[in-house]
């Protein structure tokens, strides 16, 4: 907002889902799916968002597109608070911000032909004049690796990868500035994941897109992202640019997460941090630092005091009492740089193997 280059700014976003029960659906509690998340994305850049399943990544993605209502906080898109827009204005805003879903099977209406799925909103928003409509849709489809004859087909005739291409084409056809990619490859075959990732990258360059790339596959995030956010139980626990966070993860949760990336090279050693216990319920999160139930560095303070975001320089934000200068803690979590350097190499190698085994 302050910065001209900032496209999306999220401030202290909250999204609680009410838990209803009883005859008249009384609200008996709240699932704090997103509990105070702040970040920003620059034009044409990609932010990776990682975290365990259920930590609120999808909710963040949907809420910043106003596909959910919000509970608190603000979302500025191109300087406008989207929750402050009227219905008509919001409808006009829609094409600029799109989403690609995780499950390519449920994200396509089964009763419409592909051409209609992709073109429907184009016509609705008059992205192109009516006489150019057909050509435009064809062009978009081809840009996404689809053929013109696919227009008359129905989603059930396509494989998962092709469906994801259709989803991408649908989003892209509206000429968006920003696309939320909610685990766009996690439902696909490994061999096809690379194709989709490459497609997304190519499109980003071609159309100058900004991505919020949600994934729990750290290798992919490392490959595609400019900045990375790590979420735990509805909170953004760490945020930094990619190189910084992969070479110097600060938050104990981030460390644990990154240490789980498998390294095929036996010569490289790394201390694998095993997270004990399962992720607590977001309906009833632990007090203080929500991670304290599983954190190996947990202190008394962590159980009562909610850690605040600390800027450790270079826009590296972390929410942990360990980095609080007043904490008085001597304990510094050891970083294992060697292992993280290896991650990138390993990913590239693995990727090479994939594409080789599936020749284009």
């Amino acid at each position: 907002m302050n910065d001209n280059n900032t496209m999306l700014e999220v401030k202290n976003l909250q999204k609680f889902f009410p838990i209803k029960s009883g005859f008249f659906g009384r609200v008996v509690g709240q699932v704090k799916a997103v509990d105070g998340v702040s970040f920003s994305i620059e034009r044409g850049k990609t932010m990776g968002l990682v975290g365990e399943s259920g930590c609120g990544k999808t909710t963040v993605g949907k809420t910043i597109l106003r596909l959910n209502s919000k509970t608190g906080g603000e979302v500025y898109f191109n300087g406008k608070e989207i929750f402050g827009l009227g219905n008509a204005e919001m409808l006009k805003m829609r094409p600029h911000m799109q989403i690609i879903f995780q499950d390519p099977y449920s994200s396509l209406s089964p009763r419409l032909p592909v051409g209609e799925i992709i073109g429907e909103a184009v016509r609705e928003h008059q992205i192109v004049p009516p006489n150019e409509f057909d050509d435009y849709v064809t062009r978009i489809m081809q840009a996404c690796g689809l053929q013109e004859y696919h227009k008359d087909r129905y989603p059930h005739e396509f494989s998962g990868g092709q469906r994801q291409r259709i989803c991408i084409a649908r989003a892209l056809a509206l000429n968006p500035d920003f696309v939320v990619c909610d685990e766009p490859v996690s439902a696909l075959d490994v061999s096809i994941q690379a194709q989709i990732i490459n497609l997304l990258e190519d499109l980003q360059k071609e159309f100058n897109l900004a991505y919020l790339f949600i994934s729990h596959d750290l290798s992919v995030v490392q490959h595609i992202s400019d900045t990375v956010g790590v979420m735990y139980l509805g909170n953004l626990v760490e945020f930094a640019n990619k190189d910084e966070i992969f070479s110097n993860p600060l938050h104990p949760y981030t460390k644990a997460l990154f240490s789980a990336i498998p390294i095929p090279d036996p010569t490289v050693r790394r201390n694998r941090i095993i997270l004990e216990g399962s992720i607590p319920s977001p309906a009833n999160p632990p007090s203080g630092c929500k991670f304290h139930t599983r954190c190996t560095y947990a202190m008394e303070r962590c159980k009562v005091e909610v850690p605040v975001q600390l800027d450790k320089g270079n826009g590296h934000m972390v929410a942990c009492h360990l980095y609080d200068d007043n904490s008085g803690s001597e304990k510094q979590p050891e970083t294992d740089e060697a292992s993280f350097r290896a991650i990138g190499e390993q990913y590239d190698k693995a990727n090479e193997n994939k594409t080789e085994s599936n020749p284009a």
Partner: protein
Amino acid sequence: MTENKTFHTDPDEVKDPNAIQPEIHLDDVQRVKVLSPTMLVLKRFLRNQLAILGLAILIFMFAFSFLGGLFSPYRQQQVFRKYELIPKEYAAAAINKDLRYIVQTGENFSGPSLAQFVLAKNKGEPVFSAGDRDYSYTEKGEDFYLISELKVLTDVIVLAGNGRFTPAAGVELTEDFQTAALEALKSSQTAFEYGDDEYFISRNGKMNTISVAHEIALATKLVFAAYEPEAQPLLNSLDFVEQAQLALINDADSFAVGGVLYRIVIDEDSAIIYRSQDDEDHPFASVSNIIVNPISPDIFLSVDFKRTLNEAIAEGKTTFTAVTQNGTEETFTINRVHETYTVYAQRTSQLIDMYAPPSNEHLLGTDGNGMDVLTRLMYGGRISLLVGFVVVFFEVILGVLIGGVAGFFGGIIDTILMRIVDLFNSIPFYPIVIILGSVMDTLKVNPYARIFILMTVLGLLGWTNIARVVRGQILSLREQDFMVATEATGIRISRRIFRHLVPNVMPLLIVQATLALGNIIIIEATLSFLGLGVKYPIASWGNIINAATNLHVMTSYWYVWIPAGILIVLTVLGFNFVGDGLRDAFDPKMKR
């Protein structure tokens, strides 16, 4: 970035049409004919044998019900009749035990006079009186009495061989009569004859009263029957009967009345009187002791008939043959109860052709109202199917509206609407419709109006299921990513509902509606069976089976109710097969 380089095996991959090649599956692209989801559903449906069977059943039922009525030669409420020979009362006969009285025309002999006669006869007194009249009777033969009224002519006092006559007013006495009377008085006779008349003397001290006897009636046990209806008046005349009786008593073979000669031929228990005319004898009357009367006044029983009947009775036969007044020979049966005999003639009469067994005219026979069962099944099918469709249509409209609104808008609207659904679900269905049925019975609601009321009530009580299903489906669809995508791409609400939501609710709705159809048909049949639904004279499958509530009909006339039962079972099965088939075709994953 080096990473990008290695990631891309071919920089042009994406734009290259061949890039997609690795993703082409064996069953994809040009190899397989492109099928729209609708065609796919159809294809899957047609592959389901049970569904095809159900569809065939339903097509048959529709053709049977809606076209059958056009081809059936009969109308829905056409009553069939048959002609059958059944014994009908024709005549009654009895052996005459009572005296029959024939009264002189212009005279009156009845009531108290009759009673006094019977008393006097039983006591053996030759004279009797009733009121201020005096009567006398003479027994001329067995069970044959002549009854006369006595008229006072004169009082006589006999003094020393001379009689002093005091004639009644207006009576002139001749010398000769006075002499004859005195003669009789002197010899103490009670009666004497003078001229053609007989005179009676009654004494009271020295006072004698002379009266003249004047015939007014006769009593006999014989029965005279005329050969020709014209002869009947003569047979009721005192003169004729008296002469005929006297002749019979005296074994005379002829007698004359009014200058006509009648001959008598005795034949065992009866006699025939012939009228001689122009030297020819015509049968005129028959005499017997049996009374024969026709049952209805338009039947004339000929003497021949009566004589044959008499013989049959005498011989103790139970049937006889005789010629009727139309000149046709017929066989009659006699039924005896005590001393009376009833004669039955075989008469064809028109009867309602009830419970006729299957035949060429009535392939499934006729029912208890003499209506063609097959034809009623056709019309009944119309009603049953029509009720089903209208009710389901009604249910679908209500269900989609309420379920759709609840599911789409959610929140408090959903909560309120679903509580209304619960409310309707807790209405006890059968008690309500049974009460409604009896109320309509009491109010004598027109059978056609009844059907409409029935349909409305069934629809009002039945929409909740569809509403629930639609709501559930919409709630789950709303969460589906493709619905979220329509919102994300900024598509209008109306378009989201009608292009995306409705087509995806349709399959389930069609399945539900199909299954509901079978259900409604059963409910309608149940109600009509109980006499609370569709009512006679309108046919419905349910009220056709109602015949089976009569144990006799159930056991003896299977063809009246079994076919309706079979049709209901088949139709409901058909709807269920098709419904299940559609469900499997719409959603192959659901198949168990």
